[in-house]
């Protein structure tokens, strides 16, 4: 790794870093991806580095960051002049709805990778990755997916995390406290059913193991039984096996076996019945097993509190979305390490009457101060291009207190990367991280616009002069 302050002949070092890991990288990656030429972004300002730096990109990763003047780009490298502008990590829209809700649906299936206008619109705003979510209704709404935005790539090539979370919502469109309670009851029912489903399968698997073990123990006995009793005994076994599995049932069964002893031994071990497969319950089971986080959209304090109660009871990983009034429960969210993805704070949404009356744009700052990981999402894929503006309003909007400019950047980059479980490769401009980069050119009076955007080291957007 190269750090600013090194004064070694860096051109040589850069060339070395360029060649060696690049070769390794190409071997590791699937052959479908065309290798992109190495890129050097010169005269850029990167957070955490003093003064302008040169950033070297190869094999889809950031390979080196060195102070300007100490590094010269090797030959054959595409040079991008940042002109003293900021170089920021590609922004991640942590909350972009697409497609309709379905208990077994996948947001990925509602995304058109060939809609170049939409993809270019997002890239032009410096958004390089998106967490696609199904639109919300109550109950399970399907699976979320994390993708990168690379024009011309197929859906498969875009996927970063295919099954990122199970999505749900609570309290959306609920007219009053009764409907609100019903939503909570429905969510609890889903979780309880999933728990019962998991138990049924665990019992089945345990019973199956025992069955196999017993079969192995008595090869002679089984042979006799098989020879002795065909037809009738088998049917009898099958009927008994249909009893719902459970520990009490097993104990009873073993008691019976002791009593009946010889009779059972003659018939041989009982093959346990396989519980029916239910894919919807299986998805919720993955939430219970903490394999998938539950992304739940909730806005009002009551709904968020209901979610936290359920989380305390069932122990699943929770990501809170929308979260208009989450600032009122900031401490509780921080204590449970529940990250929050705030919905849009833009005009036209904030004024919406369906939002709780205690909504305040400053809640990002309150949550952050309490220690909650806060990302900001656009709420829908159509609105993804307005994400950076939306997030900037978290600093300035309304009468509430806001985030600092650095915290706004974080809510669009490293925070969503952490929440989406990709923090080890995305959300930072750092050596070894994915080269999803945005060069921001100052347009005057504080306005910045992306002039060049890279995804996986490939230039995917260039602002026309």
């Amino acid at each position, binding site marked *: 790794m190269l750090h600013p302050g090194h004064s070694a002949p860096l051109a040589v070092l850069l060339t070395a870093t360029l060649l060696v890991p690049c070769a390794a990288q190409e071997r590791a990656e699937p052959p479908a991806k065309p290798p992109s030429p190495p890129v050097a972004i010169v005269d850029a300002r990167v957070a955490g580095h003093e003064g302008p730096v040169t950033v070297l990109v190869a094999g889809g990763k950031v390979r080196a960051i060195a102070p300007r003047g100490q590094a010269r780009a090797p030959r054959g490298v595409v040079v991008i002049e940042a002109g003293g502008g900021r170089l920021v990590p590609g922004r991640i829209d942590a909350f972009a709805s697409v497609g309709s809700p379905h208990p077994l649906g996948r947001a990925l299936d509602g995304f058109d990778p060939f809609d170049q206008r939409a993809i270019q*619109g997002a890239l032009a705003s410096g958004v390089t990755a998106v967490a696609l979510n199904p639109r919300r209704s109550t109950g399970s709404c399907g699976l979320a997916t994390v993708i990168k935005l690379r024009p011309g790539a197929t859906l498969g090539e875009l996927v970063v995390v295919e099954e990122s979370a199970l999505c749900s919502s609570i309290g959306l469109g609920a007219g009053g406290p009764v409907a609100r309670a019903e939503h909570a009851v429905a969510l609890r029912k889903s979780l309880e059913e999933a728990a019962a489903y998991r138990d049924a399968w665990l019992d089945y698997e345990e019973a199956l193991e025992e069955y196999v073990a017993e079969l192995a123990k008595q090869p002679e006995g089984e042979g006799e039984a098989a020879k002795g009793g065909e037809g009738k005994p088998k049917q009898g076994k099958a009927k008994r096996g249909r009893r719902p599995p459970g520990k009490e049932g097993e104990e009873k069964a073993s008691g019976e076996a002791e009593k009946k002893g010889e009779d059972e031994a003659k018939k041989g071990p009982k093959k346990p019945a396989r519980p029916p497969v239910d894919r919807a319950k299986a998805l919720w089971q993955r939430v219970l097993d903490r394999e998938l986080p539950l992304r739940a959209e909730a806005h009002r304090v009551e709904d968020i509190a209901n979610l936290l109660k359920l989380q305390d009871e069932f122990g699943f990983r929770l990501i809170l979305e929308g979260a208009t009034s989450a600032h009122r429960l900031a401490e509780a969210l921080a204590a449970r390490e529940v990250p929050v993805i705030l919905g849009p704070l833009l*005009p036209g949404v904030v004024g919406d009457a369906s939002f709780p009356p205690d909504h305040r744009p400053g809640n990002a700052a309150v949550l952050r101060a309490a220690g909650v990981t806060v990302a900001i999402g*656009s709420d829908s894929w159509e609105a993804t291009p307005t994400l950076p*503006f939306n997030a900037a*309003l978290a*600093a*300035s909007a309304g009468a509430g207190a806001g985030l600092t400019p650095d915290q706004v950047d974080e809510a669009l980059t490293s925070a969503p990367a952490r929440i989406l479980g990709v923090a080890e490769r995305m959300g930072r401009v750092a050596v070894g991280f994915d080269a999803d980069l945005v060069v921001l050119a100052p347009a005057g009076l504080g*306005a910045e616009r992306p002039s060049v955007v890279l995804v996986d080291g490939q230039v995917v957007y260039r602002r026309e002069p």
Partner: protein
Amino acid sequence: VTRRALGAATAAALLCLPLTAGAQDQPLALRPARVVVSPERAPLEGATLLLQGGKVAAVGVDLELPEGTRVVDLPRVWAVAGFVDASTEATLTGEVDEVTSAIQADVSTRHGLDFAHRDLAAARAAGVTTALVVPGERNLVGGEATLIKTTGAIWRLGGGAPVKLALGSEVLLEGRSPTSRVGAVDALRRCLAGIDRQGDDVLAQLARGERVALWRVGSALDARTALELGEHHGLALLLQLAPEVEAHDLGRLPLDGRPVLVGPYGHGTPAARLRTPAAVASRGGRPIFASGAPATPPAGLRLTACLAVHHGLDAALALDALTRAPAAALGIGERVGTLEPGKDADVVLLDGPPLDLRSRVVAVYVGGQPAFARPPEERP
């Protein structure tokens, strides 16, 4: 010093300012880090902005200050002229349009204004110091708009307040004529042709070009009609494009030197619409932003400007569209729109550059008097 602490200090300093009328004559010298005197000039660094008698008395580096001047140092704060919102329905109570007939020349928003409305405080907090409160777009002639300072004063204009006209799908209502575009254009033609130009009524003043005709159009075709009719009848036309109008719709619309109201834009506005302000500028027009409040919050005015810059509008033109251009279009360019000496002391102070949405309005002056200061208790 962190940005937040700085903002708090600024707010505290500004809250200490005397609010009584007796203090009005005491000169006040603001020393922000940067002063944007007018949009096309580079921001002045280390300048002093001297406010006296409700006006900008002087602005520059190393000013000689009159005796008894109160000096407020505002490090890292930007000062810009108060924003002019050229189309808002904020502060209006109840139904905005009188829809019993499509021509309502004698209706005035003045009679629907409520200066106690919370919209007004929200507008000041967003940096809006002057606003044109307009009728809606459901009438061909919607009536008289009202120009106000957001501290709650009605601005008496020599020629009379602007009159709102509209052409677009919104004017076609059930149970009332017109019911079609051709019918709407015909009704407008008849109305304009039938005006007694020697008269003393609102329409006569409109026809003589004494009052601005703020004409909202739903499409580029409607814009063409408005331009033709406006020219034919000698109207002082201020065109307003509905936010749905896309850049490529504009075609060869002749906009040379014309002020054109655009926006508001916000959450999810498609890029084709966001490029309209840049397209207006590239056709020689002068874009002006409408906030569309209260349907969208007044903070949407600056957001609209930022979105427009992101989609190709020059940054200086965007600030112009928030300040000087609307003032000029409404005929009050002598009074507001820049911080040049002699102008009203309508000043917005932000804790960063004005077109960085992360910057916050920390204080607002209207006529040299504090009109908004971000209270410290709103900070975490």
